[in-house]
């Protein structure tokens, strides 16, 4: 894994691993938390929690629609259900149930989708959630959170459990570099500035944050300094941080492991169009499904690289 090398970051755990451990560690502090799984708890890592608290873990079988409905019933009765599956199956298979049973009544259900994005690799496009952010951030009142690394996941999982109302947390499969330290502060709804610069701001989340930091190093060598914002919460979006970035750096590049429509790029552009119009370039997988392959090879083939962000930055600076 070369992500984060240029920025001097060391490789850490996958976000899904950090999620499972964080949930278990928080289990005693949040006695109402229960997990509801669709028979992939060993992939989503909720099994870490369910093994520690067996009476609070429910595996309802390969039935995502029913799984989400059960979670809604548990929430209506005062529990804090954490319902999880592969992001693709959770958000796509059970979307009507998420809409009707969770978002519409604004119930306190925590939805965790693992194996998001194309970086899952060899399993191929059927398992890759590349539209989940668009689907989930379309729903009124649902917070959408995309952690960049293991340490921030720990904070954001706690934030998710403390948040009153539905939350979607997106987790990646592969190990990613550590960007944050154990004492970092992360708040749902507040973007984190990781690096400052004058010429543009790179807004990213998830896996793309480490890649954005690599790109910022490469840009500096070319005389372009870039601010890097970790927009870990897509909804509700941190308008203030985006407007500030536009006012202070003038231009944006938005990088995400997602389709071009309805993701972070669209959300950011919607904010700037209304509050602070500016040139923006977008880095995403393009309007296509991906394929099987090794994660790094896929990221290169579908344009999710530091080089792609550098090219977008140069382009936006020339506009």
């Amino acid at each position, binding site marked *: 894994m070369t992500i984060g090398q240029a920025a001097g970051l060391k490789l850490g755990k996958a976000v899904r691993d950090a999620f499972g451990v964080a949930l278990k560690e928080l289990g005693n502090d949040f006695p109402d938390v*229960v997990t509801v799984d669709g028979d992939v708890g060993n992939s989503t890592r909720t099994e870490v929690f369910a093994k520690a608290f067996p009476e*609070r873990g429910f595996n309802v*079988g390969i039935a995502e629609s029913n799984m989400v409905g059960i979670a809604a*019933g548990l929430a209506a009765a*005062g*529990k804090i259900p954490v319902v999880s599956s592969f992001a693709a199956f959770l958000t796509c298979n059970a979307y009507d149930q998420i809409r009707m049973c969770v978002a519409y009544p604004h119930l306190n259900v925590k939805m965790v989708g693992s194996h998001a994005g194309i970086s899952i690799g060899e399993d191929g496009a059927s398992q890759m959630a590349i539209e989940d952010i668009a689907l989930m951030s379309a729903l009124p009142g649902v917070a959408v959170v995309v952690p960049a690394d293991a340490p921030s996941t720990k904070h954001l999982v706690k934030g998710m459990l403390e948040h009153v*109302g539905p939350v979607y947390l997106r987790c990646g499969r592969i190990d990613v570099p550590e960007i944050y330290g154990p004492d970092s502060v992360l708040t749902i709804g507040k973007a984190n500035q990781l690096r400052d610069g004058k010429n543009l701001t790179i807004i990213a989340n998830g896996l793309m944050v480490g890649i954005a930091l690599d790109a910022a190093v490469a840009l500096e060598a070319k005389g372009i300094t870039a601010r890097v914002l970790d927009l870990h919460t897509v909804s509700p979006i941190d308008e203030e941080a985006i407007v500030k970035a536009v006012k202070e750096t003038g231009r944006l590049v938005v990088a995400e492991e997602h389709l071009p429509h309805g993701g972070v790029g669209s959300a950011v552009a919607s904010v700037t169009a209304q509050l602070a119009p500016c040139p923006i370039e977008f880095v995403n997988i393009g309007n296509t499904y991906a394929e099987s392959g090794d994660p790094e090879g896929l990221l290169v083939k579908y344009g999710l690289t530091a080089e792609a962000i550098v090219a977008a930055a140069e382009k936006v600076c020339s506009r």
Partner: protein
Amino acid sequence: MAEVFPHVHQWRLAGRFPQRYDSAGMESSPVWHPVKFLGVFTDFPTLSSVCLPSKEYRVAISKPLSLDQLKAMTKVLRRHIVRMTTEAGSGHPSSSMSAVEMVTALFFGGFMEHDPAQPRWKNRDRFILSKGHAVPVLYAALAEAGYFPVEELMTLRKLGSRLEGHPNMKRLDCIEASTGSLGQGLSVGIGQALACRMDGLSAHTYVMMGDGEMGEGQVWEALASAEKYKLANLTAIIDQNGYQQTGATKDVLKLTEFQPKLEAFGWHVQTINGNVIEEVIEALKVARSVKDNPTAIVSHTQKGFGILPILAPTGDLNYHGKPLSKELAEKALALLAD
């Protein structure tokens, strides 16, 4: 009314309607007035807060009506259904009519312990209407139980009314699940039943589905998972009225023999005539006595039961999703008079 259901009448006189109209804390009034909308980001503290039981009301509401009173109540609910859907100019009266005996027995026959003064009381018995389009029957029962003034029934489906076209739990604390997309209520009921059991509560959860709704795959996912957790505190009711939107259920999908199918899923199943209240009461008694399995009642009913002589001349015994005209409504109300 006052003579047949003295306790209900007394609540009205005493103004004992829920102290708030919504979780935003609006004052209640015996006379309906437009209510504030809740914002989507508004907290919903009433859902998880533990309400202390109010014994006086609970005992009152759980005291069963006599058989004669129950039969009279079925007519009252049917009159409400006719009036409110005709007033609304839309809705599903025939789908509501088939379920009247079951809803009457549940709410007024001593099978549901609940508290109009504290709709989110933790140990309340729950009723989830998965066939959400039949919500007029539920609104009628909730109004008669004292959750809101019966006058408010006439606001059904109107802008600003809490009585939306399909149940919305954000608008009314006494609604257990927002439904209207078919096939989902049983899963929600399983979640409620699991949570109640975890918390050591005696509460029972009832979920009513339609026979057409059984075409939804999620129902069968839910049937399997309820058996896994041996949810004896859960009862599924299939209101098998024989029709769905485009015609007879048996002609749309051949799922209609439900008893063997549900038994194969490990459920305790009874099949009854659901428009005979004595059969309904017996079946509910048996369902509450089963201790190790989830229970189901396949309730054979007739769509539009109670006003069939009015519907028959129209040549449409399904009469799906349309209110009676004023003229037909008046005939129906005359038929349903005490």
